[in-house]
């Protein structure tokens, strides 16, 4: 069964949406998609590991880094309750292994590049706040442990500490210090954690999610510290192979359902705006998991918001049908637009959303919308 998940889609989205930092990588994450289809560029100096179906995931070892694969990310999104209402947050660490032709003995050799990105959605603010860090591995200033979850770029870190995840993100406009505690077993995406990403069987990744992470900690803004708690979702995915490149943009959701269930769905759009591919999965509170076929997922826009800054129109509210489940998503706030034109020319929408069924709230999660300002090109 061809099974599509959103992971690599999200990487591709991420690689666009985070162009400001990835600009420096000049498509480190993106170029493989172009060349990977035909394997034109063999990399004698960099033999990437391949995803093999049937490889079981073992924890906690697989929570750590897989440096032989080309790309990997730990992607945490969630909702926090503050005294003045709910906030959305997103904390991501990427690891990517550049294609190096030769083995440079320098300690500075860019064997692995690590990227941290964090964003805060606060309805009290006019718009999204975000910041990022990029560094090459080395000198203990940036790295990712292969044995356990520990990834850091300078003073930004996400690591396993005493059975919980600890995220310390001293960003420019806000500082997070959060613990994320698992309440459920890992949700293995695809076929026991090996997920297909396109019509070609070779395109695959290792992918699991940790939904319903109980989140607690502090957020410091302008010298004022708040104690917060909420629920988050972590995706961890690694791969060396690629997605089809014929899409113009993507829509993706990951929802922690109030009944303890978890829902992930995405669609890739054609340049004309139609559905190019789709996928996802639903896991009920009892652990029963239903994986969606591409034909089982439909995204229908309900309401659009036009950015006053860029004039871009985003469908910020949706009706999503996934197999037998139909939900509506509405944003925590309309303006969760990332404008990085000044540095890279990319504009996208990424933010916290509520999930409703028949008008009643059934969950909270994150929505990503890309390719609305301009067609994304890899």
């Amino acid at each position, binding site marked *: 069964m061809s099974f599509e998940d959103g992971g690599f889609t999200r990487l591709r989205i991420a690689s666009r949406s985070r*162009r400001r930092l990835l600009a*420096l990588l*000049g498509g480190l994450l993106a170029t493989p998609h172009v060349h990977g289809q035909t394997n034109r560029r063999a990399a004698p100096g960099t033999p990437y590991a391949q995803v093999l179906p049937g490889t079981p995931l073992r924890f906690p070892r697989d929570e750590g880094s897989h440096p032989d694969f080309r790309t990997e990310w730990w992607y945490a999104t969630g909702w926090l309750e503050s005294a003045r209402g709910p906030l959305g947050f997103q904390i991501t660490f990427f690891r990517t292994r*550049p294609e190096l032709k030769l083995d440079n003995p*320098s300690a*500075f050799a860019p064997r692995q590049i690590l990227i941290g990105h964090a964003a805060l959605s606060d309805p009290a603010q006019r718009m999204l706040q975000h910041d990022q860090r990029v560094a*090459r591995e080395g000198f203990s*200033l940036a790295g990712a442990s292969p044995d356990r979850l520990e990834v850091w770029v300078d003073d930004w870190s996400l690591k396993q500490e005493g059975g919980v995840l600890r995220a310390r993100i001293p960003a420019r406009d806000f500082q997070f210090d959060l613990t994320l505690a698992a309440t459920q077993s890992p949700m293995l995406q695809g076929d026991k954690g090996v997920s297909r990403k396109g019509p070609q069987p070779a395109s695959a990744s290792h992918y699991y999610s940790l939904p319903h992470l109980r989140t607690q900690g502090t957020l410091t803004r302008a010298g004022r510290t708040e104690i917060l708690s909420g629920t988050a979702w972590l995706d961890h995915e690694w791969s060396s192979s690629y997605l089809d490149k014929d899409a113009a943009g993507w829509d993706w959701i990951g929802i922690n359902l109030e009944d303890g269930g978890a829902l992930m769905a995405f669609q890739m759009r054609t340049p004309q705006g139609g559905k190019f591919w789709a996928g996802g999965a639903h896991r009920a509170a009892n652990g029963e998991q239903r994986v969606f076929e591409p034909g089982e997922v439909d995204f229908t826009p309900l309401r659009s918001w036009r950015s006053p800054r860029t004039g871009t129109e985003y469908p910020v509210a949706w009706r999503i049908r996934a197999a037998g489940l139909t939900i509506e998503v509405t944003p925590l706030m309309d303006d969760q637009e990332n404008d990085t034109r000044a540095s890279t020319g990319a504009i996208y929408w990424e933010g916290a959303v509520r999930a409703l069924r028949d008008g009643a709230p059934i969950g909270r999660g994150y929505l990503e919308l890309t390719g609305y300002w301009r067609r994304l090109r890899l």
Partner: protein
Amino acid sequence: MLAWLGATIQAVSAGALRDNPGRSALALLGVVLGVALGVAVHLVNASALNEFTLAVHSLSGESDLTIRGPRAGFDESAYPSVARLAQVHSASPAVESDAQLAGRRESIRIIGLDPFRAAQVQPRMFAAMENTVTGLFDPDAVLLSPSAAEWLGLNPGDTLRITVGTATVALKIAGLLPPGAYRQRIAVMDIAAAQWRLQRLGRINRIDLRLRPGTDVENFRRTLLPLLPAGTEAVTPDADIERSAELSRSYRLNLDMLALVALFTGAFLVFSTQVLSILRRRTQLALLRVLGLTRPALTGMLVAEGALLGMLGSTLGVVLGCALAAWVLKHFGGDLGAGYFRSVSADLQIAPAALAAYWLFGTAFAIVGAAVPAIEAGRRAPALALRAGDEEEGLNRLHTTWAGAGLIAAGLLLTLAPALNGLPVFGYAAIALILLGALLLMPRLTTLSLRRVPAWRFPPAMLAVAQLQATPRQVAISIGAIVTSFSLMVAMLIMVGSFRQSLDEWLTGMLPADIYLRAARGTDAGFLTPEQQENIAATPGVVRARFMRSRNILLAPERPPVTLLARPVDTTSGNLPLVSAPFTLPANAPPAVWISEATADLHGLHVGDELRLPIGAHPTMFTVAGIWRDYVRQTGSIVIDRESYIRMTGDRLANEAALWLAAGNTFAELEQALHLRLGAAAGIEISTSRQVRIESLALFDRTFAVTYALEIVAVLIGLFGVSVSFSAQALARRREFGVLRHIGMTRREIGMMLGCEGALVAALGVGFGLALGCLVSLILVQVINRQSFHWSIDLHVPWLALAALASVLVVAAIGTATWSGRRVMTGDAVRAVREDW
């Protein structure tokens, strides 16, 4: 009545201009050239400096502090320890190297950066570089600045070949840096690629730091210093700019001063033009007084004439200067010969304040030049001035012997003053005072020397002497013009000649071997490995080989680095040109080093002092065993015996080799043998000591090319002055020539008389100029040179060149005098005589 007087004044003033358009034009040209040169030199230097400042800023970006080590770099382990400090927001490490271009003499600066780190310090630049930076992960990839690409004639996709050690490294040009980010000629690589390809593994040259908001930079700097490896420093970008600007400041000031000299001679030209023009119009001016023009009004009118000349000349000069500067920058870059800004391609930076200053200088000099005779003219009683033969009396007030002597004495005293802020300000002031004093002494000196001229039998000569003796003050002005320009010319000639001769002798002493071999000339990426050294020494035809290692070290954080030269030292054979008295190292004193004069001056060191050098694993104490003369390294150098150096550091690399040729072997044979033995060692440059000498002297001449150019202009202005005064006198003496014709002298004889006068005036001017020039040259050599560049020069007077110049000047004076007389005598002798009555 008033209107009529106004018209008369206008007629008198304008008439003077109309009668002698050539003379006024010459005076104008003097001011124009003086101002133009000053403006051009200043603008070129300011533009280069500005460009340099921009370069430092674009390199350091928004960094608050830069940690920098010697050329050889420092251990990279300093980077993580500094980056982890709580006060550090971001730290961007870099490798810097001046790599020689394969097959070319020039080198290019290669900067190895971690783009992710650099982006935190230089966000603006990296925003524009997004598409090119990943290409840099290829260890052979390099980005060129647009100016480097243009200079090298290379495009993206082409190959840049550089010399590292003795091998050629081919780098692929992956792209160009965004225009405007780096304007100087540089290449950028990834830091890992740079470490590997430039053989700098484990070492970096600088770390740019951005501190967290609220960090006190100075406090942090102090806490940082003890954590840094030996030989590194932490400086703010501003201090960096300041220090680099300081390096070239003396040279820039010297050029500014030379330009001012040209301006000064221009002002003197205005003075002599005005004096003579007022003399010529004395009857008209007296008439104006008689007609009711008040004394101040007359003075004002004459000063206004000078002011008009000055303003017109200054305006034209500023325009010409800007054009000249733009032309120089376009065709020769921002470097005025001394190599301080060699890789800087600068755009013209018009500095309105500087332009205004030069305009004011030019105008003020012209006004002063005109004011002296104008005040005098205003004081004359009209009745006296209306009489014939009053010219000489008009100059009585210009009698200023005591003031002149006082100025000279003050000037001589000033030569004892030390440099001000590293600049020989008082030395220049001394020269100005002495020049001015000498000019004021001229009337007295002229009178005294003319009295001693013997009477000749030959009538034209007899008449000439009598004429000069009767008008010593007018003669003094002509002589003054010659003295001003000739003395400066003499001074510069002696200074440059002495310097060149000293350099020549120094080179002879420093280059005792037959052949010199260098790895990647003038850069720090080139060196000879110990194996290569053995190979070179074992080459047939080499009887003896001596190797030298040079590297930069930091003695004091606020001073530029000094060059450490590790080489065999034999103080008895003179292979080190010591200027200090012999010194025996006391028992159990630290090992000996020999410091250059610049090191001694800049770091306040004396023979016998102990100093700590950051070489080896720990800073080590040394004793200063002598001071030697080094004309190459202006920021100072320290010589250490190579054996001791290797013992202390384990560094067996060498940058240069001196080879002695076995009898019967030719240079060409050995050169070929060496190239064969060293294989593909493209970076090795082999030359005979003769070639090195010729090259060094050529470099010297290039450095002084601008100096020569400025000097020539000053001389030209001086010659204008001579011709102006002769032609003025000839015109004024039209009646006299008429009378002489009436009593039977032929035109030819009158011409000869004028020639004799010219010769005598020129001879006196040249004589006084020579004496004054020698004095000024002493100040240039002993005070200004020493304070500016910190090296001593032996005085060598280029007599032959001086004699030739003196002859040219005398011949030119004779020619000018005869020619102006001939022009005047074309008219009817009878009419000329009648003019007086």
